[in-house]
Every structure is written in C-alpha cells, then in structure tokens.
C-alpha cells in the first residue's frame, strides 16, 4: 500500500510536525518543474511527429524552364502524369497567384500585386504526396517521370529542409524527457535523505520500539506513512501550480493557429501522462522511503 494504514494510537509515536520541514516544499518545486518539463516534452514530441508525418512523404517539383508557356504546360503535364501513378496519393500544381501571395509577404504586399514581384519569373511548382513507406523507390520512379515529362526540373523532398527542424524539436523533447528523469531522481534522493533524517531524529524512539518488540515492518509503516503524506502534500501543491501554469499557457497557445506552433499540443495521451505523473511520484516516494527505512533498520540489531 502506498500510504500504509497505521492505527491512530501508533501514529502518535511520531510527533505531529506536518509541513514543518523542507521536504514537502522541495518536492512541490520538483513536481512543478517535472510536470512543466513533461508537458514541454510531450508537446515537442507531438509537434516533431506531426512535422515528420507531414514532410516525410511529400516532395515539390520545381520547374524552371525559361519559357512561361512551356513551364505551365510542363507543370500541368507533370501533375496529370503524377496523379495517374499508383505510388502517388495526390499531385497539385501550385497556382502562380498563391506563389505571389506567399512571396508578397517579403515584398510588403499582402495581395501579391507589387510591380517588382509581378515582373519576377516564378518557377512552376507541383506538390506531390507519396503513398506508403517506400520513399526511396518512389523517388526513383518520380525522377524517371520528371525526366520524361519536365526535363531539367528539380525535385525537392520536404524532409530536406524541414527535417533538421523536426530533428531539433525531437532533440528538445528528449532533453525534456531527460529532465523529467533527472528531477524524478532528485525527488527520490530528497525522499531518501528525508527518510534517513527521520531515522536519525527519531533514533531513540526507534531503538525503544525495537527493544519492546516492534518489527521492522511496524516501524517502517509508521515512517513510510508520514513521508508519503508529507510528499503527497508537496506533490499536490506542485501539481496545482503546474496545472494553473499549463492552463494559462494553453489558453494563450489557443490563439496561435498557424505555423509550427499549431502542431504543438498535449493530446489525450499527454494529459493522461501528466495526470499519472503525480500519482507515480507518490508511489515512487512511498516505495523509496520504505526501501530506505528497511535498509537502515537492517543495520540496527
């Protein structure tokens, strides 16, 4: 049992000084940081996965033939030919207006009607999404197709330019995961120190209890209960503050609907993990306290 049952009369064997020591407060801080790191890790991991999924099977074919009419014909032919291939899920020719609108943001013209922009010879782009996982094979087939329909066109796999970003985000998620593990280890260390300090503080009582026939289990339950409850207070406090912070961030995040930020969310599994973490922390604290106490008591006759 995580918080063992101890008769009320036995509980009095330890003086009631709840929340007077630093343990609950340190645990609260660690729990807060653990939850924030875990939330960041989950959000980043989901973001990296979303980006990875989006870019893994997508390429853009850039047709740069000088003649705009030939360029448009090649683009249309490539789109049709690609769409007819079994390894292609979808093929879409990017409209020139869409290209101009995108570039217009850098020219200070939201409408894409900047005269300089209008005069630029823009390439024709065809976005192609592959079917299945055989990306290398699909690329080889696409290269052959492009060579036939639009010679000289350049194939740009999206993974080439967004891949490093996804890898960076995934690395940050791993770092967040490592931080969660480190803070869990730190919490366990705090519990070990608390258990040892409690044994030191109450050594005379423990010795007395041993001499009148108390078993290690009886003594351990007493201290395990106290440490588990103190830790649970800290964990509850840390969780409450972390929940408030996450809800605030979530509220602010909900206003961001575009770009990479839109891919970061916790999801049901993420929230479930965050809810499970405090419970796991209480169980870990109780187990750590129990093992520390039993090991220490073994050294006393």
């Amino acid at each position, binding site marked *: 049992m995580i918080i063992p049952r101890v*008769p009320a*009369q*036995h509980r*009095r*064997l330890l*003086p009631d000084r709840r929340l007077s020591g630093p343990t609950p407060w340190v645990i609260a801080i660690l729990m807060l940081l653990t939850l924030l790191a875990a939330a960041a890790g989950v959000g980043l991991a989901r973001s990296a996965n979303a980006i990875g999924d989006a870019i893994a099977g997508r390429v853009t074919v850039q047709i740069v033939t000088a003649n705009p009419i030939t360029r448009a014909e090649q683009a249309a032919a490539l789109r049709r030919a690609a769409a007819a291939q079994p390894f292609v899920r979808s093929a879409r020719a990017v409209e020139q207006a869409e290209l101009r609108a995108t570039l217009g943001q850098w020219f200070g013209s939201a409408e894409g009607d900047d005269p300089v922009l209008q005069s630029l010879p823009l390439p024709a782009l065809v976005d192609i999404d592959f079917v299945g996982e055989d990306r290398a094979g699909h690329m080889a087939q696409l290269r052959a197709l492009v060579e036939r329909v639009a010679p000289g066109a350049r194939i740009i796999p999206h993974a080439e330019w967004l891949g490093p970003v996804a890898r960076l985000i995934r690395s940050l998620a791993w770092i967040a995961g490592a931080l969660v593990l480190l803070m869990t280890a730190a919490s366990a260390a705090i519990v070990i120190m608390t258990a040892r300090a409690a044994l030191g503080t109450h050594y*005379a*009582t423990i*010795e*007395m*209890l*041993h*001499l*009148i*026939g*108390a*078993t*290690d289990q*009886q003594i351990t339950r007493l201290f395990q209960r106290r440490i588990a409850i103190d830790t649970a207070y800290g964990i509850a406090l840390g969780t409450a503050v972390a929940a408030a912070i996450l809800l605030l961030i979530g509220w602010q995040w909900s206003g961001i609907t575009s770009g990479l930020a839109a891919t970061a969310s916790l999801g049901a599994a993420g929230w479930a993990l965050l809810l499970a973490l405090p419970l796991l922390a209480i169980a870990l604290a109780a187990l750590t306290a129990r093992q520390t106490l039993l090991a220490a008591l*073994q050294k006393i*006759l």
Partner: protein
Amino acid sequence: MVEFSGVGLRYGPDAEVLSDVSFNLQPGSFYFLTGASGAGKTSLLKMLYLAQRPSRGIVRLFGEDLVSMPRHRLPGFRRRIGVVFQDFRLIPHLSARDNIALPLRIAGVSEEDLSGPVGEMLSWIGLGDRAHAFPPTLSGGEQQRVAIARAVIARPQLLVADEPTGNVDPDMAMRLLGLFEALNRLGTTVVVATHDIHLISRIENAQMMRLEKGRLSDPTGALRYPPNRS
C-alpha cells in the same frame, strides 16, 4: 530460561568488556546483578534484553540460540522481555499512559483490552491523575515509575532492570521492589542491576551475580550449575 556459556563481548578492536561469562538463570528466579561501575553490568544486561549479540560464546534464551538467530525473529523474543532502563527512555511526546501502553500496542492488543490494565497500572504506581502528563513534565521518580510500569505491563517472562530504584524515595523503592517480587511469584524471572545493599537484603531468595572487571564471580558454581528448583 537464560544460558550464557563462555560469553565474551568487545566493542570494536578494544579489549573485551565481558570475558568468559557463564551462568544459567532459572525460570521464576530473582537475581541481583552487582559490580563496580565499569564492571560490565550494562553490557551484560544489553545482551539479556537482546540489544547486543556477544562477540563469542553461547547465549540461549527461552531454549533458543540467540547468537545465530536471524534478526527477524528477535521481536518475538523481545516481547517476552521487560526492560527498565537506567535512563528511563520514555518517549517524550507520548503521555504517561501511552508510554505504559506501548508494549501492548506493539503486541497488537486492542485499545479496549489494554485500557483496563494500563489504568490499573497507573493507579498502582500512583500516577492515576497524571495519566496524560508528558514525560518532560514528570519528576525523575515519576518517570522511573512509568518506565517500570511499561516494562511489566505485558507480564514478561524475563524482567531486566538497570538501577530501577535510583530516582525514587525509599517508600516507592520498596513498593516497586514489591511489584517485581509479585511478578517473580507469578513466574517472571527477574534480573535487577543495583548498587543498593538495602534493596538486595529485602528479597529473601534472590541470588547474587557479581561482575568484577568483566568476569562473573561464581566461586561456588551455583550460577553456572544451579540446583534444580522443586
């Protein structure tokens, strides 16, 4: 009841504080343990109440070898032993009543079953009206009485007392000795370490165990080979 054979005890690398101690304590007997300060009385008592294993020799208690006994079996034996410590060792944040009730609670006696005996014991030691007082508010004599009550409340088979009357007035000393005697008559083996000659002279059938520089004086061999009690 208790058998020591060739027992030696040393703390760390120092010389032995007890050497070649051999005796047999008979069930239902009363013993006084005497000796000068530093003779090893407290060390001997520690082994009797299972706070210390010997460095060598054989110690048998209630028919079992305690030297090789696994640790997890010791609590069961300790519950059959009552101990009065020289420094009382009361738990300061427990009331007199809770201190006395402790051995019964540890043994799993219900609150309903222990309230009667604990109340009687408190009255008997004259602390009925101070049941809820905490040890720091009790006088030395009162604390000693609580410590003795705690040692005898569970009717132990072996009672070990280290200077149990050192802090009480002569009247109370006699009353407490009378309690030990009554327990002894009920079959408890009693070992009392004391310097008090008057106390020793009050118990007719008590046997003397004298320690001198860590060795037990037993010129007649009566401690080692006690006559059978009828």
